[in-house]
């Protein structure tokens, strides 16, 4: 009897894990396919039936991406824009989040939330006209400023939560000890929320890195970012899939690494406004 029951339990566990694997398979498969495709020879990549496991590994796809495109420049552009957007967002957003958390500025928080709802494309027409008149299309400044629309709300909203979690006693103690608000902010609050700053910085970096809509209009030959560069590759490389997959892998890899670092905060970042405020 006892063995019969444990066999039953074992079967149920096996069934459960089979189900888990089945459910997670599509997620894993797309990434697996992207990476393996990038390592295949042209013949294998476009071969039918497709090869899942046994194929000759080559780095030709990667070499071709760098040979045919100024891919390093695009990577550098993406890096500069995402870093600029994140730094500016932190400089401007941290004091704002601190202020909203401590002086309960609900109205301000709401404005930032509405910015999250408004379709990005409704900013794009005025920006395009503005930056064209200022001759700022195809500059880092224009891209950094516009990417702030994605980065700043996330920084502010996620940081409000972190600042609210600081015990009020700590801030008051700093103020009584003769710190100004600015001293209390810089020397007490900011060091306390360092982990939060790292998480939001990474979130904002990823969102800027991934942005397509703003860059496709406002980036030009000199400032083209990775998503736009990859999009432009599609037409020419119709069936030459190795380089396409290699480019896709190279854009995605930094994002995946960064995501793994801050995975606990991702859902908060994606649903900001829902839980707090």
């Amino acid at each position, binding site marked *: 009897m006892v063995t019969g029951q444990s066999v039953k339990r074992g079967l149920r566990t096996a069934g459960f894990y089979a189900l888990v694997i089945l459910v997670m398979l599509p997620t894993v498969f797309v990434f697996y396919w992207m990476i393996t495709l990038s390592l295949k020879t042209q013949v294998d990549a476009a071969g*039918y039936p497709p090869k899942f496991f046994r194929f000759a590994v080559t780095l030709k796809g990667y070499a071709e991406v760098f040979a045919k495109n100024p891919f390093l420049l695009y990577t550098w552009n993406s890096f500069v824009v995402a870093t600029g957007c994140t730094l500016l967002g932190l400089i401007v957003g941290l004091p704002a989040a601190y202020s909203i958390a401590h002086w309960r500025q609900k109205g301000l928080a709401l404005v930032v939330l509405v910015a999250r709802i*408004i379709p990005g494309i409704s900013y794009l027409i005025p920006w395009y006209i503005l930056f064209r008149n200022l001759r700022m299309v195809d500059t880092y400044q224009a891209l950094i400023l516009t990417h702030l629309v994605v980065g700043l709300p996330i920084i502010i909203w996620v940081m409000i939560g972190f600042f609210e979690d600081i015990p009020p006693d700590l801030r008051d103690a700093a103020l009584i000890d003769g710190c100004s*608000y600015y001293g209390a902010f810089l020397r007490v609050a900011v060091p306390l929320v360092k982990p939060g700053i790292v998480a939001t910085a990474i979130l904002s970096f990823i969102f800027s890195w991934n942005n397509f809509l703003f860059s496709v209009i406002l980036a030009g030959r000199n400032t083209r970012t990775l998503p736009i560069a990859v999009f432009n590759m599609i037409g020419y490389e119709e069936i030459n899939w190795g380089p396409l997959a290699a480019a896709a892998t190279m854009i995605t890899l930094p994002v995946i690494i960064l995501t793994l670092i801050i*995975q606990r905060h991702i*859902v908060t970042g994606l649903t900001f406004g829902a839980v707090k405020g």
Partner: protein
Amino acid sequence: MANRTDIVDQAVAGASLPLGLRVSRFGHRYAPFIFPAPAVLIVAVIIVYPVLYTGWMSLQEWFASSLTPPRFVALANYQQILTGDPRFRDAFFRTIYFTLIAVSVETVLGVAMALLFNREFWGRGLVRTLSILPMMATPTAISLVFVMMYHPTLGVMNYLVTRLGLPPFSWTYSSKTALYAIALVDVWEWTPLIMLITLAGLAALPKEPYESALIDGASPLQCFWRITLPLLRPTLVVAVLFRSIDALKTFDIIFVMTQGGPSNASETINILLFNQAFSYFNMGYASSMAVALFAIVMGASLILMKVRRVGW
């Protein structure tokens, strides 16, 4: 402290007070305004100004490619959208349809996955980690991978589908299936979000109702319909709200995979408006569509927030 400076203030009649002290008093008194000021300035320039400008531009007729200045046409653009433009009407219904399909599939699958994963098991952390990746991976890159997977003759999707005994599909290459093929990408990307939000909601549910239901001899299915689902409603509404807002605005994956085609079969408002603005430079007309899209997104949000309060 404040008192003493007041006395000093009066004694030296303000002006001769050391500059540093005056600055720091000003800084102290207006700190609640000074802290958010840079953010407010940026928000004004990159968010408020463009929104107002779009509203104003929607009342004009203007081609950015021509030299003629904008011409004020009042509500003519809106009239055209609402009554005279079948392409916009199609795009409108397509946007709603796409959102309904994608979000409802994501919700059903996401909740089912959350129920499956809502227990302690070896590898739970790994499942969580893997679930986050599709949401964060660059949409352009993901779309590109799907473009290759969807290829009608060489793509892996048709290989898998035929191995399952189904006929091959044209995916994004046919006007009949393009919208569904794109919705599938959206489902792949965003089901994990609903799953993770639901999982957090499940963890916060009280235990008591289940215990008394167990005593009353309720079946697991009854427990789900009668206890879990009603208790989860606020969580689910938030999840659906976030997904709907973003699904209505879907741009990247559609633009990369089909650019609205074939023969406009996947042209949502966002895509139509993008082309009006940046292919035809019809800025006034495109602006009125942007206002309309904003109204739709706002309307959907308000409806969902109402659902959160009233019963089913």
